[in-house]
């Protein structure tokens, strides 16, 4: 599987942003942190264990909006990357050197994000930023690019992952996930999709148009409509009735993972049970226990994180359990833990390739990344190959379903990919969006 580069990064940027907000709920509430407007970057270093190699460490950084408005969805990513750092040190480090992970928190504030990036690069001298879970990475992307430091994996629906060549996505962007929606719904014979998009973030309003573009790109005959919702509304009966009256068959709720079940519950109470469609970053394991989600379709950049038949996932589960026993049973656990871990594995692969050590430079890490060819990280992601100086769009996605009260992987946890024709078409639609 070769790489497919974005021909129209700006247009894709728009689309990815739109879907990014839908996915992780830029539609969420204003957080405490953003209310005070304060800046708080916190640094933590991964726990050193007895098996950790001695000597100077390879320093890497991570930036997360873990305590911001999206805390409920993203907070677990912090644990995911720290679990990887602990696991890699416990297994002898990389190239015989320990890994020191410096975690920065931006709380969804662009100013804090930029400050965090500057701190990591100028003060801490990290060789790479691994697991970018900052929802405001647009504010620091240009700076990081100017310093030639690679940003490896993380929230792949973030814009820089498809527009900035120094960002190395470890999985599909949201544009591609929408193409996945269209293909899956088409296969299920669903022809009427409603997208309830968040009222709180401007980019959410692009979702219906993006849905139309995605459907058209794969030739799916799906009627797509949109309606704005507020994540602070106490009840979604009105929207459910409107969708029911419009004979909607499938529903995307573009809000954070806690809003989606409330919408589904409101609809269930009105006797309206459409097929719920969601992207992995906004899904929650708890959905499986809710009858309203039966038959739901979840599309994401990585395979289902519970499928331990995939070697990479099994390793993740063991590593995460070692780092945080019972952590996978917690209410805030979701697929972002494994996505963050995957970012760590991607760095590990690149650093091993390039024989990165404590004295290496960010450029060395990039060399390691460019040396990867069709890397799937033991099944954790679709094949990855990067080309120097160009943004990279992962054209493949993974699909899961909720059936019988549990998540089940579709297609044996193997990715499906958009073809060149579909990518060309969606590019054309995105151009119309401006």
């Amino acid at each position: 599987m070769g790489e497919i580069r974005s021909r129209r990064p700006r247009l894709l940027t728009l689309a990815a942003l739109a879907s990014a907000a839908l996915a992780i709920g830029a539609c969420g509430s204003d957080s405490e942190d953003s209310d005070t407007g304060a800046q708080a970057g916190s640094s933590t270093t991964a726990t050193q264990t007895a098996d950790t190699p001695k000597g100077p460490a390879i320093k890497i950084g991570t930036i997360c909006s873990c305590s911001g408005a999206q805390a409920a969805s993203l907070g677990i990513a912090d644990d995911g990357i720290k679990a990887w750092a602990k696991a890699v040190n416990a297994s002898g480090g990389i190239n015989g050197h320990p890994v020191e992970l410096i975690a920065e928190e931006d709380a969804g504030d662009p100013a804090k994000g930029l400050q965090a990036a500057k701190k990591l690069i100028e003060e801490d001298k990290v060789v790479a930023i691994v697991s970018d879970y900052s929802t405001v990475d647009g504010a620091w992307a240009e700076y990081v690019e100017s310093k030639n430091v690679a940003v490896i994996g993380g929230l792949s629906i973030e814009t820089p992952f498809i527009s900035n060549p120094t960002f190395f996505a470890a999985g599909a962007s949201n544009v591609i996930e929408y193409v996945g929606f269209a293909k899956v719904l088409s296969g299920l014979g669903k022809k009427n999709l409603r997208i309830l998009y968040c009222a709180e973030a401007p980019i959410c309003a692009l979702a219906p148009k993006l849905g139309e573009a995605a459907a058209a790109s794969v030739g799916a005959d799906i009627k797509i409509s949109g309606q704005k919702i507020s994540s602070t509304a106490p009840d979604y009966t009105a929207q459910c009735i409107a969708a029911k009256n419009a004979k909607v068959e499938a529903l995307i709720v573009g809000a954070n993972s806690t809003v989606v079940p409330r919408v589904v519950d409101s609809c269930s109470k009105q006797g309206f049970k459409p097929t719920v469609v969601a992207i992995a970053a906004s899904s929650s394991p708890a959905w499986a226990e809710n009858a309203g989600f039966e038959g739901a379709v979840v599309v994401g950049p990585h395979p289902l994180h519970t499928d331990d038949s995939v070697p990479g996932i099994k390793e993740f589960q063991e590593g995460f359990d070692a780092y945080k026993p019972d952590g996978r049973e917690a209410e805030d656990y979701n697929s972002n833990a494994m996505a963050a871990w995957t970012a760590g594995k991607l760095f590990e692969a690149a650093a091993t390739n390039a024989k990165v050590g404590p004295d290496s430079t960010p450029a060395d890490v990039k060399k390691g990344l460019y040396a990867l060819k069709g890397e799937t990280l033991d099944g954790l992601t679709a094949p990855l190959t990067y080309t120097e100086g160009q943004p990279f769009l992962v054209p493949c996605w993974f699909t899961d379903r909720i059936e019988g009260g549990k998540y089940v992987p579709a297609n044996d946890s193997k990715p499906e990919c958009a073809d060149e024709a579909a990518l060309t078409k969606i590019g054309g639609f995105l151009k119309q969006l401006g």
Partner: protein
Amino acid sequence: MSELLPFIVAGLTTGAIYGLAGVGLVLTYKTSGVFNFAHGGIATASAYLFYELQVQRGMPWALAAAITILTAGLVLGVTFEALARAIQGRSLAYRVASTVGALLAIEATVHLIYGITEPRQVPQFLGDGSVTIFDTIVQTSQIITFVFAIVATAALSLFLRHSRSGLAMRAVVDDPDLLASAGTDPVRTRRLSWILGVTFASASGVLFSPLLPLDPVQLTFLVVAAFGAAALGAFSSLNTTFAGGLVIGVLASLATKWFPDGVLAGVSPALPFLVLFAVLLVFPKRRLVGEGFTLPSRRVAWTAPLRFQAANAAVLVAVLCFVPTFAGVRLTAWTTALALSIVFMSLWLLVRTSGQVSLCHVAFTAIGVCGFSHLTDQGIPWLPALIMCGLIAIPIACVLAIPAIRLSGLYLALATFGFGVLLQVMFYTQDYMFGSNGVGLTMPRPDLGFVNISGDEGFFYVVLIAAVLSAAFVIAVAEGRLGRLLRGLASSPLALQTNGVDTNVVRVLVFCASGFLAAIGGALAGVAQTTVSAEAYPPLLSLTYFVLIIIVGGGAAWGGVLAAAGLILLPAYVDGEDVAVWLQLLFGLAALAVALVPDERRQVPPHLRAAITRLSGKRKAHRTRATVPTREMARPGSLKVDGLGVRFGGLVAVDGVDIVAPTGRITGLIGPNGAGKTTTFNACSGLIRPSAGDVQFDDRSVSRTSIAARARHGLGRTFQKMELFDALSVRDNVAIGAEGAYAGANPLRHLAATPRQSAAVDAAVDEALRLCELESMADRAAADLSTGQRRLVELARCLAGPYRVLLLDEPSSGLDAEETAKFGALLKRVVQERGVGVLLVEHDMSLVLDACEHIYVLDFGKLVFDGTPSAVTESSIVRAAYLGDAEVQREVETSGA
């Protein structure tokens, strides 16, 4: 109808909870005069307590709900009553800050205890069943919620109407002293009303808890929607408030059907705030209670000598120049802090200098960044774009000034809060604000070419220069005419008006200046970050801005710098995930603490003042003129009252009174208490509108002329209950008497005085101070003087102005016999030397008989006699009026008929 029914059912449920919360809010506001901005915080705390008991500890829901509601009602009710009692007598800004501080503290505490990463959901505890009504599925939980809210509100209404305690709670609103004299403790009564009000807020929190995952901000927003319901009930009627909640709930629900897309899609979440804003803009003023709760600031403003400030400022700027050498990665934080210091300076001007309240300054910064970004997108050069984004904020500030003009005080605070939320919910998503393309707004750096100011370091110095210029601007404003008028506005808007200043112009000016600066500061902060998104401008952040400006001290410039440092620099240098939350808790508690300190004690300790003054060297003494130019004789004219009638409801206060007070004469207006003398004065000055008759000045009717315009025509006055600018020095008090007429109604003339005007004002002040023998206390604060001295200051203010007829209301009250005699001589001298006229209301008959050439006698609102002093002393009618001689009384009635 069947299509609408599901929406109506959904709306009635949430509306009932809004109504319930609104009823609790209105109850406490009515009985205590304290509008509880922390009402949503109480509901939030209750929702989390209920979650703790029911979900975490497995308690049956009914028991958990009962414990939650009763505990919150009792503990928080008693606490908030104590808080409300403690802040009685504080000026409005501090009272608002106290409950806003409580809200921030409660939210931060909940955040620290429960965090926000773990989703916390309360299951629907009122049952999962449903019934079908007209083909609409209605949940039993919806029915139970609705019925509970109705029953609770009805029970409260019945309690207030029929129980002894309820009667006392209604009575405490009207006259707590009378209630106390009747043997009922007003404190206990208010405590009961707080317990009930908080119980209602707590119940709304419990009822809201299963509807959405627990989140302090979202819960607060839901309950804040009750503000709209309270507005519909005119902040007074409990039943109408509940009905208002239902109306808002139903309309908000229907709006989701009617307006699914476009800008109107924001109508549903914005509806409570649209209602709030609309009510405050259009409701008749008399329908809104509580204006009486607005108290002026009595805080004595003291500022360090300019030399001291300038030296410190020079040191600070010098240190700031070196910031790029040590800030490292925190340079952006320093730049942002400097830019935000401009925003805080603008807020200081509005809140601390003029006594207004703004809970929407984040909205101005949002307007600033959006305006700047779009203007530069259009190719407008950097500096013009920066200035233009400030200009864009001006008309919006003007709109916000409307509630300030109509209502001022608390309602202004509410209107600004509503505006901030409205802007976010309805307009942030529009293309002309943060845009719909989602890439955020690019904030370009300036480019000079020959010097690098687009890098972080270069731009830091750009912002430093902007901050210094802004500080110079706000200091110039504060020290100049506008500053004096703004401080006057904070101290006594009425006195400002009666000295010829159009207070509406002052209010609009300060809002515009503040909005302009805030937008520019916001834009600069955005440019520092290079990219901005809507998420960084949440409306609740305005509350933090507000409490910060209340907490800090040091004047506009220093206060602005301190507030920005606290908000931005502190967390930039302190590591830790919850630093921001801890700071919010700290700011909230600090605001509470500051608000609890009485206004007059909230000032720099005297020994510190003395030390600073010593350090600064000798203060430049005011140069009093050895000879004061003699004033020109007043142009002849007269004040005529022709058939004046004033009614208060069914009470006739003044009935068919005719008075003439010409220049060059002291005219007396006497009568027993309640005779209508002050009412007549108020009608002459324009404070009240007469129900009959006419007031003429120079033979022209001024009945429809504003208070300030009458003053500018030459009608000066003092008050029985003195209206001094307590926070100002004696000299500044007197200066406003002279300056008011210069400021007039022209906004430009409010900004600064010409050198010629300054000289004229100084001369008038010197003369008035000398006439009233106040020179030795010219630099003392008016609040620090004795009653007699304060009377003289009020007279001096009147004498400094270009008035031709002075209405003096009991000016000798508080003076001893010797002072009264001197006062009489002074009056005669002024009349003789300047040719002004005086209409004197006075109880001291010796002064009246000595000074007046003609005397009018009022009794029961009617003119019963007028004549020379000797005729008055001999009149049996006057004796009857004062002594109640029944026989003569009949004579009066006969002659009156």
